[in-house]
């Protein structure tokens, strides 16, 4: 039986938790995500938004928020986590887009990390990658994964998050 926690290519991400903080949700990473985490994000600078946190700090922040169970959205005006088409999901920070899906309620699978500015148009310059292309990459990665069905969870936001 191939489940997320017994296939060899997934890595469970842990972070340093503060006092009175507990693991309320889990985050698993696939190889492309691990490569981005180790080799790409540390070299990134803050993008056009000039956010107060570096991309590496933003990654720590969003993982921290997810893992300790903080709200990932407030009404319609704030979404740190957005469902996309075909049951793919996107975790967002000022400079990062974490593309993946929800495997089971409260379990996120990170497929890869994108740089926010690469998904935005700059004047006449087109985006480096479209959101559709990123979503399709997630679906392709998920389809190739030797994982028993269902490979992803379905349902409404509050039930999955």
């Amino acid at each position: 039986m191939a489940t997320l926690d017994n296939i060899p290519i997934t890595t469970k991400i842990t972070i340093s938790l503060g006092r009175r903080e507990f693991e309320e949700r889990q985050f698993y990473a696939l190889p492309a995500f691990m490569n981005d985490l180790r080799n790409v994000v540390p070299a990134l600078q803050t993008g056009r938004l000039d956010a107060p946190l570096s991309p590496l700090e933003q990654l720590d922040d969003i993982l921290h928020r997810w893992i300790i169970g903080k709200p990932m959205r407030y009404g319609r005006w704030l979404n740190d986590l957005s469902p996309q088409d075909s049951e793919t999901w996107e975790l967002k920070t000022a400079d990062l887009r974490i593309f993946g899906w929800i495997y089971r309620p409260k379990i996120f699978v990170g497929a890869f990390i994108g740089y926010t500015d690469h998904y935005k148009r700059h004047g006449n310059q087109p985006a480096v990658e479209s959101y559709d292309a990123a979503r399709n990459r997630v679906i392709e990665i998920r389809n190739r994964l030797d994982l028993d069905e269902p490979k992803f969870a379905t349902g409404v936001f509050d039930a999955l998050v």
Partner: protein
Amino acid sequence: MPSFEFDIGEQARIGSRFIAHVRDEIQRALFSEKSARKITQQQIAEELGTSRAVINRQIMGLENMTLRRVAEILWAIGWEPHFEVRRIPVGENQHPAPQLITPALSIKATASTTNGTVSIVQNNLRAVAR
């Protein structure tokens, strides 16, 4: 299955998570107010004499905020900041604070056996026993 502890270093983690915590608290307060009554970022901006775009960026954590602005935004929605500090408990800090050094007591004692008097001097206080 392997696991990986993602660690950006204690100094960066402490600093960035504090900034994020302040942002989270402002968002929580604003969401609470939005749930209770109609309040818009435009109203907050007008209250503070700035633009909605600036307020939006600050609330979303996309712009550094001064301590003054943190308090002003909260004030504009009828909230206030509450801030306190505390010493990190022993063993929970990678770089423990240095121990406070208590000056050693200076004790000087002299004894006389010729006239049966014992004189002890401690921090310039003299006690004499006969």
